[in-house]
């Protein structure tokens, strides 16, 4: 009677802690993950560190000057930044409807038997190297796109961005004035943006709840009615996230843009006119023959590009994560 009941009933410790092997496993996995984190975090830090001397030397003029003329000690990226955004926006305007349509087709309209083949086709499209798209854009797309450019100029030329400094109705038209424009580069970049945006959208669409789809049909919805009221609202996060991810890719696309665009350092909003520049093209073309000062300036331009894409990608990641379903699949 001396021993009280609760002394016997002490619960056994259920969590004995991890064995030594597990602690090693956890520790090494965590340290590798931290290493990866440090490596990728240091990309920004390193580029930012290299940017300091340039900002010391040129100050904020680096961001507002449009010319890149090291001989005159005039170095700035305002025109280049504008060109980067223009090419990316053209790419997005073209890629967004096509990516949305393709994602809806694959997830809703395609026969179930060929669905996995179509998914693989989109993956394959993302896997085609950008240099191949660039060569295609330069040699095949450019002549056709210049006709489209002239048509836009003829019919929508009153809108300032579609203006070109030439006579669109001339008997022998100056086709080369339409070559190497932000528009053509944007069309080519759209080909690379499209599969990325499409893959994200399709992934979200295919997760939309079956019960709600059937409920929509049961209430008498047509196929499009069901898509509009169930699939699109459910996939909104994926649509925004996929588009932003594509925008991030479009901002940084290098080789295709470098092949197609003809270089110019003017601030211009005329997307159909020959001559434009992007940050990545600037870096790729001027890197080989750059002096130390110019090299630092190019690295600074790279840092600005890094910040732009990081911002866009982080917004994309937030939207995609918000639309993600549960952590693991249960049996």
């Amino acid at each position: 009677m001396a021993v009280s009941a609760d002394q016997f009933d002490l619960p056994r410790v259920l969590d004995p802690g991890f064995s030594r092997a597990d602690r090693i496993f956890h520790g090494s996995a965590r340290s590798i993950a931290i290493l990866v984190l440090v490596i990728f975090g240091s990309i920004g830090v390193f580029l930012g560190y290299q940017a300091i001397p340039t900002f010391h030397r040129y100050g904020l003029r680096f961001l507002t000057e449009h010319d890149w003329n090291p001989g005159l000690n005039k170095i700035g990226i305002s025109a280049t930044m504008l060109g980067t955004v223009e090419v990316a926006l053209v790419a997005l305007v073209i890629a967004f409807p096509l990516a949305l349509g393709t994602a809806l087709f694959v997830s809703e309209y395609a026969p179930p038997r060929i669905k996995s083949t179509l998914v693989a086709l989109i993956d394959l499209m993302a896997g085609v190297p950008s240099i191949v798209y660039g060569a295609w854009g330069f040699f095949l797309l450019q002549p056709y796109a210049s006709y489209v450019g002239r048509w836009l100029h003829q019919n929508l030329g009153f809108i300032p961005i579609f203006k070109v400094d030439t006579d669109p109705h001339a008997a022998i038209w100056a086709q080369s004035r339409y070559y190497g424009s932000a528009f053509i580069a944007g069309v080519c970049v759209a080909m690379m943006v499209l599969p990325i945006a499409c893959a994200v959208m399709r992934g979200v669409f295919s997760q939309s709840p079956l019960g709600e789809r059937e409920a929509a049909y049961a209430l008498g919805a047509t196929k499009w009615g069901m898509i509009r009221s169930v699939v699109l609202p459910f996939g909104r996060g994926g649509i925004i996230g996929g588009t932003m991810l594509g925008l991030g890719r479009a901002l940084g696309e290098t080789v295709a843009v470098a092949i197609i665009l003809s270089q110019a350092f003017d601030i211009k909003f005329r997307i159909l006119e020959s001559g434009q520049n992007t940050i990545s093209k600037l870096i790729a073309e001027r890197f080989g023959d750059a002096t130390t000062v110019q090299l630092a300036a190019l690295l600074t331009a790279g840092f600005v590009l890094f910040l732009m894409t990081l911002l866009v990608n982080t917004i994309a990641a937030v939207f995609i994560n918000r639309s993600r379903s549960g952590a693991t699949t249960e049996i």
Partner: protein
Amino acid sequence: MTVVQPVTSPIDARNVPAPAEDKPRPLRARTTDDVLSVVGSFLGSGALVWLIYFQILPLSGVLGFLICWYAAFLAMFAGVTSLSHPKPVVVSRLMGAAITGAFVVVVGAVASVVIYTFDKGWHVLPHWNFYTRDMAGVGVRDPVNKGGILHAVIGSFEQVGIAVAVSLPLGLITAVFMTEVGGPITRVVRTVVEAMTAIPDLLAGLFVYVLLIVGLGMSRTGFAAAIAIAVTMTPIIARSAEVSLRVVPGGLREAGLALGASHWQTVRRVVLPTARPGLATALILAIARGIGETAPLLIVSGASTFTNANPISQPQNSLPLFIYQAVRSPEPLQIERGFGAACVLLIIVFILFAITRFLARQRVGRS
């Protein structure tokens, strides 16, 4: 006081329909009206636009014709449908046609990329020397039966091989950490990895340039290129490996732990083998991306014309770099060589994707 009771219909009790009448209505079936209105509008609008576009108006150009045809098709399809259907059905069919149209445009564009590349490059492909010789001492105007891309192929394979050796362990272990180990920093790691998946590949080149060439004083070599490729591949592997680890059923993990296995044993003997096809797919997708990576190589790898199998000294060429320089050359023969190399690169990518398809099918068979 109201008690909800199951409503029993008097019809149920009296007259139960025979099972034979209970055939489900086919949901995906197309009616004759569906098929004929599409086909009729397609042909009718094509004929009408052909007549107006080519015969009456002084217009030309295949692209304009196709665009006008599609617009006329949509209009005619809407008109035909509205004769016998209410507005929601008209809207639904129009959207279906627009969505299918977007898909056709995308497939057509991809097909034109592939077909055009092979069309421009196939002259070069039958020449055996294209695969067994390099460009050392070969001028850009020499015919295609001289010189080849052996140096670029060797460089590409070596660089991607080193990149895989670096990025596979890093990416895979990061993915294992994110799904299996976890902890307070998981969110940070995942956010950074996802943001880095889409970071411009050019910046990977700049980073490696700053770190290895400026910082450590190395010269431009194949090794620096390989590290730059590894920087772009690691987030891709980590991200897609995480996806395939996450779909491993939680019940399998719990079964492993319940049988007394340690966490490490469970991960090694249960989780990783279950996810193996997905992990292989992640690796191959990353290789396909890595082998076509051009932008970082412009910065960190000098291009050589001779065969250099040693990645840690001397510049080393690679397939994307060779294509980039060849298609920018003004010489038609060199451009042709560039397209030939592009065909080789595309074939390599296609083979890698065929392997992923094979592995993906295996996963379906096993589960």
